[in-house]
């Protein structure tokens, strides 16, 4: 590699540093809700914290389940329910994501980690809204 090329790459690297992989997506949101829109950016902002960037999960005193190879991802409703309502240690994200964002991040999880048949499934806003309504209905009927 020529010195010229190396310094060009170095420059490129330096310029690339402050920028993000997903160019128009913010690294940090302004308020309680998330500002990212695309599936990859939302995965990187939310899921990667616990399930890890590569979806392998983690184990300490208890575990964050791996998404990679997770058989439960075969059921899209299960995935939507977990994102919206949470369960056990998994926080609910229904109040900090709109329907489009929920569909985008769920689609990203399926694309990367879902079973082969699921990987190209697009999740519509209607599907997300229907799951929201179903969860709300359950919560109303459970109220003390």
């Amino acid at each position, binding site marked *: 590699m020529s010195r010229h090329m190396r310094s060009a790459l170095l420059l490129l690297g330096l310029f690339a540093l402050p920028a993000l992989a997903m160019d*128009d997506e913010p690294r*940090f949101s302004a308020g309680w809700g998330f500002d990212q*829109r695309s599936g990859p950016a939302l995965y990187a902002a939310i899921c990667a914290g*616990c399930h890890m960037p590569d979806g392998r999960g*983690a184990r300490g*005193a208890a575990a964050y389940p791996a998404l990679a190879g997770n058989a439960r991802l075969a059921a899209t409703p299960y995935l939507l329910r977990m994102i919206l309502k949470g369960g*056990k*240690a998994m926080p609910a994200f229904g*109040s*900090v994501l709109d329907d489009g964002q929920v569909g985008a991040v769920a689609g990203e999880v399926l694309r990367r980690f879902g079973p082969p048949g699921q990987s190209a499934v697009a999740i519509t806003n209607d599907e997300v809204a229907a799951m929201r309504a179903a969860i709300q209905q359950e919560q109303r009927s459970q109220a003390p």
Partner: protein
Amino acid sequence: MVGRMSRQTRPSTSRRAWLQQLGRVAGSGAVYAALTQLGLVQASPARADFGLGRAPKGARVLVLGAGLAGLVSAYELQRAGYQVQLLEYQARPGGRCWTLRGGDHYTELGGASQHCEFAPGEYFNPGPWRIPYHHHGVLGYCKRLGVALQPFIQVNHNAYVHGQQAFGGKPQRWRELQADFQGQVSELLAKVVQQHQLDEALGSEDQARLLEALRSHGALDAQGRYRAGEIAAERRGFGPQPGGGVSAAPPHDQPLGLHDVLASGLAGRLDLGSGFEYQMPLFQPVGGMDAIARALAKAVGPRIRYRARVTEIQQDERGVTAQYEDLARPGTPLSVSADWCICTLPLSVLSQVEMRISPALRAAIDAVSYFAAVKVGLQFGRRFWEEDEGIYGGISSTDLAIRTIGYPSHHFHARKGVLLGAYAFGANAYEFSALTPAERVREALRLGAQIHPQYPAEFEHGMAVAWHRHPATLGCFAWWTQAARERHYAQLLRMDGRLILAGEHASLLPAWQEGAVLSAQHAVTQLHAKASA
């Protein structure tokens, strides 16, 4: 780029506005929990003379977890004469009552390791860092065990309030903003009184009293105006400061007008010390928060088995048995039995532990997820905040993702110092958690430099703790929703056979050490009553 522009033109969000927004999107439970965190709850009912009666002869108690709840439980049970055994996942006592110093290693979930290179005497509390004067439980154990305390400076009039869109991004001194807001609002109210617009609401004597009070409240002049001059300068400060010699007659800075204060969006962010949990004085243990954990662990003695991962809790009418794994020899199941059990493992962990308990307690354990928070400690080679900016302790607040810069309340005028360079919560905490520790430190530096441009030149070393990546807790604190409180809280506190839970999650003071202490006192009291029956 469109997304970025629209983000930048969004008005800065105050904490109060955040709470209102949170109420709309997440319900009143989230607001309750946030208010609790921000400190709008009752004084602690802890009693200084707390103690149990005499234990039944030979009674044994297994305590799971050696955080503050487990340590206080063990301490009180031992004082009463119980035989106590503790199991702790980590290699140290204290749980979230934790201090990082030079030489410490910390490996988070996912495997990223950090080696702390802080200078001797420097430290960073990644968990709790302050103790309100009315947290009588924590203060009581500090007093009894000789844990030295020093003031924790919550409100520093000379620290900053910063908004990216406010005043061109220039940080404002809390003192000036606070004086100007209070002065301008007082002038406005005085005007309304003088224009007889409050004649129906207030009698003439009260109006006169109100005008008099507003003059001192808002630093108004004799005509009820908030104006540049000696009176206002006594509040907002002088520019330049009055001194001896020829500079003894300084010009007075022009206060900000009411419109400028309101348009900045910062007026709602002046409540740093208003909440009950944040009113001065607050305290911190000398040398780091873990002084409390170490004092309790010393008092408890050698009955703590470290690096023990609890995998299963069984019980019947005769006793309780916990299965666990020694992390030094994984794969070999071990067990320990006792007559009773106090379980202080976080709910985030407990929801994955097999337990023989009632379905109602299981449902309560499974109903609570954990709040996300991230803290970054930054060591600088020079205390520029003291030397250049006259900031001794206290907190600057910002709408940047770091949210908070906390200045050390100790070792003033020392050469180096460790700042709390970020205390992120909500969405920002998830975003910080997903970064590597090195990236978190880099982002805290990049953002914090907008407030302190000295950062890049003076930075030496950083440590970043994302609580959802913490191997022992998998989260920061129990994030109760109002619905979950109503449905499950009472059940969570109830003795279930021979077992009872304790910890900040089993209290009305989530996130505070006081919650852990009070819940431990509650748990040992319930246990003792049943064991003595």
